[in-house]
């Protein structure tokens, strides 16, 4: 379902987003993260005790998951996925209580981008898809995203 705001960047195709990211890389401009339900702006400040890694800082700046394709991070993401996600989304990501994470018929269109996927994991979505912002660090979320992208790739 398209967002009500056609200019919102999180629903842009991933390729266009990458171009945008490349154009703005190096600038201090930060990505604005929004809730998948009502587009309200999210505060993505660190949770108590959390220190942002370089990966998180880079992601906030350019919206691209620096762990994408990195074997070590993907392995860490798999461990996190098995602990936090697989009960609802199944070990292969095909979904049961929660939607499939591996087909291209996305439940929320914006999860095509790393920003959108992060927005759902960070702030939650419908019902049982609760916010993970107090449960795991943003660095861990980026590792889960890297694992999910690998899972999607493997399924193709």
């Amino acid at each position, binding site marked *: 379902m398209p967002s009500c705001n056609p200019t919102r960047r999180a629903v842009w195709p991933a390729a266009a987003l990458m171009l945008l990211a490349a154009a703005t890389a190096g600038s201090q401009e930060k990505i604005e993260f929004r809730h998948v339900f009502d*587009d309200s702006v999210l505060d993505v400040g660190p949770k108590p005790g959390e220190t942002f890694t370089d990966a998180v800082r880079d992601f906030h700046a350019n919206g691209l998951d620096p762990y994408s394709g990195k074997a070590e991070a993907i392995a860490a993401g798999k461990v996190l996925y098995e602990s*936090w996600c697989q009960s609802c989304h199944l070990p292969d990501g095909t979904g049961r209580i929660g939607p499939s994470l591996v087909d291209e018929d996305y439940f929320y269109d914006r999860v095509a981008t790393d920003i959108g996927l992060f927005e759902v994991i960070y702030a*939650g979505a419908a*019902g049982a898809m*609760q916010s993970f912002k107090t449960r795991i660090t943003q660095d861990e979320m980026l590792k889960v995203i890297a694992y999910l992208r690998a899972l999607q790739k493997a399924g193709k």
Partner: protein
Amino acid sequence: MKRLLIAAIAAACAPLAVAQTIPKSPAEVARPGGDLPGSPKIALVKVADGFNDPVGVSSAFDGTGRLFVVERVGKVKIVGKDGKVLPEPFLDLTKSNPLGTEVLTVFVEQGLWSIAFHPNFKQNGYVFASFASVPFNGAHMVVRFTVDPSSPNKISSEQLNKTAKVILNIPQPYYNHYGGKILFGPDGMLYVGKGDAGWEGDPLDAGQTQTTLWGKMLRVNVDAEDASYTIPKDNPFSTASRDQMMNLFGITEEGFSKIKIGMRPEIWALGLRNPWQFTFDPKSGDLWIGDVGQNHWEEIDWQPASSKGGENYGWKHNQASKCHPMTGADDKCPIVGTLPVAEYPHQEPYPGATKLKDNWGCSVTGLGVANYADMKGVYIAGDWCSGRVWGVGWNGSKWQMQELLHTSLQFTGGNHDEDGSILAVNCYCFYLDDQGATANPKGALWRVAAANAVPAGAETAKTRNK
């Protein structure tokens, strides 16, 4: 005169409205995607928050306007008319026993589920609590306590122990499907939602077994001085198990069929899986049951106030209007007993089905019946997984089920306030990442309001942009 004539013509042209009836075939059962008459629009207005795993809410109907939020851990908090939560619990079952808490909360379906106030609470101070018990190894207990009029907002431990009267103690073999809600009907009887006692697939065949209380709606008379309760004479099976002389001739087959040896007389309705929430329409007295389904379909049952009880809702032969076990899209099986009026699917409506994007959930939580906000007799149900809120109502010729809201909340319970408005609670307690009954993120109390009647400055539940 002219106006009368126009009215007469309008009445003649309108489709003939008939009173609502129980569906006779699965095709008559409402599913999401329908349209409620009057196109109601609602919002969820926050009343109070900061509750530990709230799973129920009750009004005492005593004119004080107090709301009683049930915390799974074994406490009940009072929300005053001003929306402020009193710091001291009204009821605390966690400290009344020097050996530890009364309430078992290890699994998320366990805990204190519900409290109900006696219809004459103002005079007798009786309040009833329904919970999973630690001392009785997980049994489902219903216990009556008496509020001391000099301490209306807090039942002290001493008062609790002095006045406790056990109404029901129902053993529980597995840790899920207790049911747990208790509610007084308009007839003054106490109704208890009793799940099939667990595992999956009803391995005990509880829903259809006449000798067990599991998998049933129960109805008992608690106004019994010398007993825990008595059986209302008009319960459908009150005399079904009565000993009698055997007579093989001169009795009709229908007559024989009414002899049910061992039938528990407390049973009001049977064939239920987990009637977690149920409610009475405050206006009509009709009974609505949200029966939690298994892998594929959720069920919503309706009984008119004129029902004599004895309905069999089919579990485990059917779940909703479908076959159980479901094996595919075209399962064929008999419909056992009474069909629901509405049903909704999980993401996968049958094994191997294409996954749905919309109109699905995983566990029905009935909230109440709306006779306001452009609704008449509309049952409002929330879902524990998807955050959706549906309305189920009759449009004059058939049942309709319409999505009213898509929220981010996990609904756990609901009830009516004194004015008939619907209250709901949400909990951040789920099968996964349950950190314990006092450690999960805090839940809140909400009120269902007409979308155009939200008080200025009130917080409403986040809903999904369409």
